[in-house]
């Protein structure tokens, strides 16, 4: 028992120390010396044994036995017997008793046998104990650690050392066979060498002896290119790439940063900044004084040029630090962006407009200047037949002119500066409404035919019959002297009147008194001799009002918006927002669907009322505030006058087709009036029939352009 235990201990100690190499080395040596070294080895081992003999006798003999057994087995393996290649020589299948094949063996679980042998006899299941027996046998059997249960046989198979080795090698991803050499030298069966006795007896292919087609086509390509002149033989390649390049050549700052924007450069010094400038650069006393008096920001230079004989005499510059600081501040604060240049042909951005030449007639030449006023002409109006003009001057006169000759036919003096005059649009009456101060005077110029004069007198007479004077607005009879001057009716309003607009029938007219909050807009009816206030509330600072040419609409232009009221239904129809600061003037297209607005912020806004409440187009052609805008009644023309003294003419075609937007073409700039006290052309009106424009200005004249 003690021996067995010892043996087991030895075995257990020995197992982990199995050194395959050592063993193989041993084996190799042994196999090399197979023939000669057997006895010597034995002798060596015997010597060792003798040495150990005295110390551990029994243990030594066990090891020896084991060693012997191993050695024999290795030898046996190495010296496999020569196979005699006869029938029955292969005995590999004899070992297999069970013939059931590769099937799940649990099919036989319920049977006493586990299969059949070669002869068809049942192989009985070997006796198997329970788990305790198994455990005990495992504990007892010293080969239990290397035994594998073979299901087919139904018993344990003990693996020998070689098989264990094999498993170990497989686990280490090595070749299972020790003897296998994966790096054997290859035999070059098919080499470039011409063999006397080649392996293949095939004839050499024909292509070895005929010219290559591929090469021929390549050569033809080159030949064609040479013929076409694409390749010049013998020509040296011109652009020789330099073999080396200067890596320091582009070391400028611009390359070091992405999207770098260089700081704006300082201006180079000029002659007058020299320490010894030529004497013409030195300032005279007067100029010096002028320089001193100038505001530092307006000075052309921030220094006075001085002459020094030598550079040594130049004193320290007092403002040096200040200027450096300002420069740094400039660089720091200035917003710098890369200007994105668009590669677009600027011509293509301009809308295709017809040439003004094709849009004739329109006024081009100054024809008549109507001189007579001794102060600026604020406003004027043309009679519906196109024969007369009435004008309001700041010299407190209202003058009537003949258009064809420029003759001032009549002058009516008024007490206050007349702000506006408007000729009644009706051809059957001859009346002019003139706004002077708080008074609106209805004038009969007395130029019309007998018939019209009679009708006018009749209208005035009817008005006086109906006058009731109930409201704040009083209708007053002029004095006899005034009547002989042509005055027909005086209407006195609470506040000063600045603008007058007639209804197309000539019975109503509206007046604007911007200061009179809710009573800013008053509508006067001549036939009834009455005045009514259409708005109960103040609508803001009313600038102008106009009537719609066909519908019962009233356009009220306040400071920033235009409101359209239906006078019959008494409701707000629309509110137009031009987005400007101060509306100065308004006019409506004779068809009634388009509107132009002039503003004091230099713009003209065209509204298509079918489109939206925002301007269809905004024209920025004037350099100064726009004073008046006007449509022609017959021609597709409109004009604007401005404080810059110019009158601009536009072609404004409105199409009957609703799908087509109005066409607006700037036609001509008429530099009509000289600027006086920053006022230029104050009013412009079209002739009712001809394509002629009239403009009045701060230079006391009215001008006609044809």
């Amino acid at each position, binding site marked *: 028992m003690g021996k067995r235990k010892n043996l087991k201990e030895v075995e257990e100690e020995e197992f982990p120390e199995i050194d395959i190499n050592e063993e193989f080395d041993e084996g190799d040596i042994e196999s090399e010396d197979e023939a000669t070294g057997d006895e010597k080895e034995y002798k060596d081992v015997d010597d060792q044994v003798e040495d150990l003999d005295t110390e551990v006798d029994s243990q030594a003999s066990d090891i020896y036995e084991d060693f012997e057994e191993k050695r024999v087995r290795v030898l046996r393996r190495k010296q496999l017997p020569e196979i005699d290649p006869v029938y029955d020589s292969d005995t590999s299948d004899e070992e297999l008793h069970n013939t059931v094949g590769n099937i799940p063996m649990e099919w036989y679980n319920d049977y006493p046998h586990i299969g059949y042998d070669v002869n068809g006899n049942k192989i009985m299941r070997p006796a198997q104990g329970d788990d305790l027996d198994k455990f005990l046998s495992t504990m007892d059997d010293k080969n239990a650690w290397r035994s594998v249960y073979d299901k087919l046989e139904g018993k344990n198979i003990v693996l020998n050392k070689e098989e264990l080795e094999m498993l170990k090698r497989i686990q280490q991803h090595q070749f299972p066979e020790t003897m296998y050499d994966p790096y054997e030298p290859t035999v070059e069966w098919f080499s470039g060498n011409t063999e006397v006795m080649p392996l293949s007896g095939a004839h050499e292919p024909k292509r070895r002896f005929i010219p290559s087609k591929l090469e021929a086509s390549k050569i033809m390509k080159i030949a064609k290119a040479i013929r076409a002149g694409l390749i010049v033989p013998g020509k040296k390649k011109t652009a020789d790439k330099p073999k080396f390049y200067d890596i320091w050549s582009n070391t400028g700052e611009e390359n070091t940063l992405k999207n770098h924007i260089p700081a704006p450069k300082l201006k180079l010094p000029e002659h007058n900044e020299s320490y010894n400038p030529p004497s013409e650069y030195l300032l005279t006393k007067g100029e010096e004084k002028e320089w001193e008096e100038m505001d530092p920001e307006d000075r052309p230079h921030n220094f006075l040029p001085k002459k020094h004989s030598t550079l040594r005499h130049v004193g320290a510059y007092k403002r040096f630090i200040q200027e450096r600081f300002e420069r740094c501040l400039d660089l720091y604060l200035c917003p710098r962006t890369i200007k994105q240049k668009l590669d677009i042909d600027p011509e293509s951005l301009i809308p295709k407009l017809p040439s003004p030449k094709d849009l*004739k*007639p329109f006024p*081009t*030449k100054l*024809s008549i200047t109507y001189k007579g006023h001794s102060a600026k002409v604020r406003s004027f109006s043309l009679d519906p*037949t196109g*024969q007369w003009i009435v004008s309001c001057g700041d010299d407190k006169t209202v003058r009537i002119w*003949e258009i*064809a*000759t420029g*003759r001032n*036919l009549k002058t009516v003096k008024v007490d206050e500066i007349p702000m506006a005059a408007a000729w009644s649009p009706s051809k059957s009456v001859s009346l002019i409404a003139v706004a002077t101060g708080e008074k609106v005077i209805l004038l009969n110029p*007395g*130029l019309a*035919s*007998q*018939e019209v004069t009679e009708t006018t007198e009749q209208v005035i007479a009817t008005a006086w019959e109906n006058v009731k004077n109930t409201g704040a607005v009083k209708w007053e009879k002029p004095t006899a002297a005034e009547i*002989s001057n042509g005055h027909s009716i005086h209407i006195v309003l609470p506040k000063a009147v600045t603008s007058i607009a007639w209804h197309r029938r000539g019975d109503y007219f509206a007046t604007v008194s911007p200061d009179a909050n809710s009573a800013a807009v008053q509508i006067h009816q001549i036939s009834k001799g009455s005045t009514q206030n259409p708005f109960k509330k103040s609508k803001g600072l009313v600038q102008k009002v106009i009537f719609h040419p066909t519908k019962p609409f009233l356009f009220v232009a306040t400071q920033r918006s235009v409101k359209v009221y239906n006078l019959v239904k008494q409701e707000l129809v629309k509110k137009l927002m031009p987005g400007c600061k101060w509306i100065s003037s308004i006019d409506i297209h004779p068809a009634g669907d388009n509107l132009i607005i002039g503003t004091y912020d230099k713009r003209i806004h065209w509204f298509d009322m079918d489109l939206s409440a925002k301007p269809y187009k905004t024209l920025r052609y004037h350099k100064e505030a726009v004073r008046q805008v006007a449509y022609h009644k017959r021609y597709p023309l409109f004009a604007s006058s401005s404080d810059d003294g110019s009158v601009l003419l536009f072609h404004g075609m409105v199409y009957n087709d609703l799908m087509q937007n109005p066409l607006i073409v700037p036609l001509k700039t008429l530099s009509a009036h000289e600027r006086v006290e920053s006022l230029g052309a104050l009013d412009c009106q079209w002739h009712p*029939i*001809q394509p*002629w424009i009239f403009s009045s200005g701060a230079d006391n004249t009215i001008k006609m352009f*044809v």
Partner: protein
Amino acid sequence: MTEERKVQVSFYSRQSKYAVTDAPILVPTKLKRFGLSEIINHLLGLDDPIPFDFIINGKFLRVSLDNYLNAHSLSTENTLKIEFVELSLPPSESSTIIQDDWISSVKIQKSNTHILTGSFDSYVRIWTQSGSLLTSTADGDSPIKCVEWLNDETVVAGNLQREIYVYDLDGESLNLSYTCIGHEGGIESIANSPNKDHFATASWDKTIRLWSHLEDGEAVNVAKKSKKKQKTNFQTVKNHKICLEGHSGAVSSIKFDPHDANTLYSGSWDHSVRVWDLNEELNTTTMNCEKVIGCMGYLPESKVIMTGHVDGSIRLWDPRTKGNPHLI
């Protein structure tokens, strides 16, 4: 020494009294107007030399022939046709008649060469050629727009207030003969018929009216209501014989055809020139342009109508072709 260049020229004149041979003459090219004039004088064999002016291709010769040939790159081989006319000096101002107010119209009497003016101060004045005022009169209070001599003793004036006054020049005074009533707009133009028995007026009321000078008028009270004094004022008044309607704008100017008392030309603010047949009272021809016609003239020799326009342009119309006018 270069040889003197010479060119063959043939002279001709439209004035029959200066007829010369049209055979080509060889003249040196260095000659100017004076040299050529000497040649003509020599050809005509005039005792007192008359200065002549020369026209080549419709233009007066103002340089030497040499320069002219060079400027027009003409060869001296060809014969140059030169027209010559009697030299006339440009008109010079002989006297100035100063009036207080604008003058709207000036007409000259045929026989005595008195000058008739109409003024914006509503006066009609007659001046002698020396510049002294012969007589003046004012009946309306409205500017006179046009005046015309009907014959040597009769003048007619139209004013802005639709009134037409006919005056007889009796020695040194103008007597109102009759007034013509009917127009509803200012009178713009008066034209006298070539046979002097009637005259036509053009007005702002778009009509042209024909008045007979020979027929008697009727006495009518034309007291003015606008005046404070309601005085009775009997005047001989005539109504129009023919009223021509057709223009759609004010008629600014009318002219009779001097050879045909039946034809009247009119220019209007409606951009048209119309030809009227007075017998038929018909508008026979209408020609249009793009501009308002301000004034009109008729050239009886070439039968061409000239019109002046407000934009400063002048147009020539041929009433026979009825085509578009020629813009100058």
